[in-house]
């Protein structure tokens, strides 16, 4: 138990602090070796595993993209067979959407949200670990399939009837459908964790109107995941049951409906786009504030825009289906909604420009990626307005124009901010700065390469080139633009390679970062780099939206949390008033076993429906053990709230960024 501090002198205070830190270190230190892999629940370790795993899948997805670009670099090319091409473009889309984009942006949230809100861990650490294992198993399943030549080949959207039992016999689509289930479970538990942590574990003083924009973005994304993902699980679940146990949900011959699948899929699929890029908007707000040395202009407008995007994002899905025979009045509604969503996005762009206007610029690689985001994402957003128009969409839908649009939106809106975020936060995660020179090379190679690949695709689409074709005729006249795109792909890939080398170099030889190299404003910069296992020794009391910049010299801190038990502070939803102390569960093997039971259920389920029964029993048993069988877990009843007391001033936070 931490000691009251009222009547001790400075020397004693230092000794007490030192002792508490040692105790905390012991209490929160993770298991070693293999046990670390299977049992550790530290949100930072899990998040880094997510990030590394998702980045490896990003590289895989990139290799698939490069293979496709080689195949399409000239007409009538025979580099890939049609069957290989179709598997590769399906796995590329599936990987980038399900195994890279969503996991990596939520992983940044899992790492940073507790640090930004002043919490010692996330709300459900063991569930977090389970989410990672389930995600990893789903990814391995997909790639095992691809390597065994049973990679799914019905597109990342797997439209029925093509993906149904009659037209896709074999196990390929089953692997896709079950992989979806795995990654969705993982996304859903991630969302629950973020919401639980943000609502109940914020440091005192961090009322909702002081929440950093990064955290707002993560929170809204988490809510979107909770509403969107069940729709796709329903779609993939019904598809799997059509395929495995002969139901006829989507079989028109037996009264099923092929368009129902599209509605279910896109009710998820369109919000998915926002799920991928709203966290990116959070990265941008963090980076803009830190490098423009300025408060973000229009905080309230920004938050309301994020919330509006989250709502309207659910009202657009039919714009993926304008070419299907559905009534025009209904379609018009979706045109209006699709155009309307440009307004909140516009508000945010304008607010960032206003923030940059007249600020004190510190131009470093993270800011470069944000500036690149402006150019790319705005263009992608504007082509989105074109696609929102029903009649115009009928011309450009399912052509390379859409390929260009979606990559402008997703790479511009998510990958560029993500790389900016890497340059910004890797010093926090590793304690080492990345090289600025390499950073600039990385940015320019990616920026030029990206535009070389995707800008010509707008023209290709207008010139009539449909998507998802493995080849085209020489007479089509599409050869030159495709060749430019293919060359661009390798420039882009070189940029990513520079990044990987930069990270490897920085881990060994990068400048030591210190706690707050960018003199940034959020609480993660108040702790050491990398942060201690317990995150915060004394949880701060937050005094403004820009916690580090607005901390007063006599800022109070939270005392009274145990140093010998994994205790966290639970606060109220709106104003973050301290409510109670809660013992956070620690390392456990059971999340791993539950994930194995889940895997038995869904993977063996591809071969026999009995696996669902067996898997459910195994999962039930493992969950029972998770809850009751582990002495480490004691459900705490309400205890008296911790007190917040002013003590001697903490050192004034750094306000000048370091020279790097």
């Amino acid at each position, binding site marked *: 138990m931490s000691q009251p501090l009222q009547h001790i002198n400075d020397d004693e205070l230092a000794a007490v602090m030192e002792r508490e830190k040692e105790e905390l270190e012991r209490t929160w230190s993770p298991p070693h070796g293999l046990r670390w892999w299977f049992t550790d629940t530290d949100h930072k370790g899990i998040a880094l595993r997510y990030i590394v795993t998702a980045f490896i899948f990003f590289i895989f997805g990139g290799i698939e993209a490069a293979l496709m670009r080689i195949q399409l670099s000239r007409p009538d090319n025979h580099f890939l067979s049609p069957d290989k091409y179709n598997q590769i473009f399906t796995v590329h889309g599936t990987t980038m959407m399900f195994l890279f984009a969503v996991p990596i942006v939520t992983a940044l949230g899992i790492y940073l949200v507790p640090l930004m809100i002043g919490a010692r861990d996330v709300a459900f650490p063991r569930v977090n670990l389970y989410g990672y294992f389930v995600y990893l198993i789903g990814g391995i399943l997909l790639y095992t399939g691809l390597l065994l030549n049973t990679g799914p080949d019905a597109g990342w959207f797997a439209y029925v009837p093509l993906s149904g039992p009659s037209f896709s016999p074999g196990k390929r689509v089953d692997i896709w459908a079950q992989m979806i289930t795995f990654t969705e479970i993982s996304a859903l538990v991630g969302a629950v964790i973020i919401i639980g942590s943000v609502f109940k574990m914020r440091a005192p003083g961090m009322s909702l109107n002081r929440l950093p924009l990064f955290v707002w973005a993560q929170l809204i994304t988490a809510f979107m995941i909770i509403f969107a993902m069940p729709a796709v699980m329903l779609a993939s679940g019904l598809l799997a049951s059509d395929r495995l146990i002969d139901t006829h949900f989507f079989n028109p011959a037996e009264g099923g409906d092929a368009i129902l699948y599209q509605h279910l899929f896109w009710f998820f699929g369109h919000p998915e786009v926002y799920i991928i890029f709203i966290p990116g908007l959070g990265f941008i707000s963090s980076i803009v504030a830190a490098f423009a040395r*300025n*408060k973000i202009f229009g905080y309230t407008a920004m938050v309301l825009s994020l919330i509006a995007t989250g709502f309207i994002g659910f009202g657009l899905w039919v714009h993926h289906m304008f070419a299907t025979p559905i009534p025009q009045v209904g379609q018009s509604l979706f045109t209006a909604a699709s155009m309307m969503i440009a307004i909140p996005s516009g508000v945010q762009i304008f607010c960032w420009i206003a923030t940059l206007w007249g600020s004190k610029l510190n131009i470093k690689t993270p800011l470069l990626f944000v500036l690149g985001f402006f150019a790319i994402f705005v263009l992608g957003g504007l082509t989105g307005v074109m696609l929102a128009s029903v009649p115009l969409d*009928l011309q450009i839908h399912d052509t390379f124009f859409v390929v260009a649009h979606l990559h402008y939106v997703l790479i511009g809106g998510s990958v560029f901010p993500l790389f900016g975020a890497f340059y910004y936060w890797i010093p926090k995660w590793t304690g080492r700065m990345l090289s600025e020179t390499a950073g600039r090379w990385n940015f320019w190679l990616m920026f030029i390469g990206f535009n070389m690949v995707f800008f010509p695709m707008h023209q290709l689409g207008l010139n009539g080139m449909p998507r998802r074709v493995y080849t*085209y005729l020489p007479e089509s006249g599409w050869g030159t633009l495709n060749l430019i795109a293919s060359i661009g792909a390798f420039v882009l890939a070189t940029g990513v390679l520079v990044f990987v080398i930069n990270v490897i170099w920085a881990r060994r030889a990068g400048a030591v970062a210190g706690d707050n190299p960018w*003199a940034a404003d959020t609480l993660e910069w108040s702790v050491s780099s990398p942060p201690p296992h317990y995150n915060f020794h004394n949880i701060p009391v937050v005094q403004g939206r820009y916690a580090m910049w607005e901390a007063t010299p006599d800022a109070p801190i939270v005392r009274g949390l145990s140093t010998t038990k994994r205790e966290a502070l639970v606060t109220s939803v709106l104003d973050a008033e301290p409510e109670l102390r809660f013992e956070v569960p620690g390392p456990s093997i059971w999340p791993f076993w539950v994930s194995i039971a889940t895997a038995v259920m869904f993977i063996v389920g591809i071969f026999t429906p009995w696996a669902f029964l067996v898997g459910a029993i195994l999962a039930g048993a493992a969950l029972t053990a998770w809850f009751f069988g582990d002495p480490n877990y004691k459900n705490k009843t309400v205890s008296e709230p911790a007190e917040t007391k002013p003590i001697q001033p903490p050192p004034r936070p750094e306000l000048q960024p370091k020279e790097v």
Partner: protein
Amino acid sequence: MRHVSATRGNLIALIATVCCFSGCGGIQNAINPAGPHAQSLSRLWWLMFYVLTSVFVLVLIALAMALRAASRRSDLNPVLNPSPETERRKRNAVLSAVIVTTITLFVLLIYSFSTGRSLTADLAQKNGLSIEVTGKQWWWEVRYQDVDASNIFITANEIHIPVGVPVTFTLRGADVIHSFWVPNLGGKKDLIPGKISTIWLQADKPGVYRGQCAEYCGLQHARMAFWVVAEPQDQFNAWRQNQTQTSIPPATDSQKRGQQVFLTSTCVMCHAINGTPAGSNIGPNLTHIGSRNTLAAATLSNTREHLAQWIVDPQRFKPGNRMPQNNLSDQDLQALVDYLASLK
């Protein structure tokens, strides 16, 4: 008959000419409209293009000005208390930008609605030709409807239409979802099993336009194309008159032998030739195969050489398609090609 082959001669010349110009993809191009439908979409496209390009340029100019107005002083202490005057000016700027954005979007929205309405409103009034297109993996079955049943006929992968006449396409999906798209004539429409969709198109200029399946439909999605031949009404009538006839009986010995080969080998299991016992509708109807310009859903030009290669080994050109390889003696093959090529 002579008239028809003359038409075909013109056609090949036409394709050759158009292909010369197709460095810019002119015959399968959404912004090279050849009919009213594509014309109005092209107008909408260019309006959006200019308006949205201006927006893009303005945003980037604003960003550049913001960066110019920013200082690069060594003092990088964060600005915590900006002057109310600056804040007010920024607020007004952001507010005006949002208002302009909203107005622009409304203009585009209304223009888009009115374009959309004009496209479907016309559908009700048009009373021209009616063609039913069925998408199959991976080719197009085309059925010309008529009130007089004797004028109904079926062909594949090549659609002739008269210039200046609206044509209503009734679209069906036989197996999986396909999408019918002729960019020069208008937008696309999905062919969904269990549903019927319609679209009307009209060509105002004679010419050949390439169409292609636009919804991923499996292994050979890339090789599921077709041609639309827009020709003057009299040429169209002649073509149509010919298509309604049963097949030409074999004239030479080689053609007669070819017909026997067709009727006694696997061909007859899937293909129909009207006027012979061959009546299966699994593969394309071959009654007038000799009059078509391409083979295998616009994959190969219809020459004797390609026809022979295709019959022997269809998997070479379009791996995965439903037609099996055929072992025919050289003489049988030549006879079969003679016969099929004669089916004008």
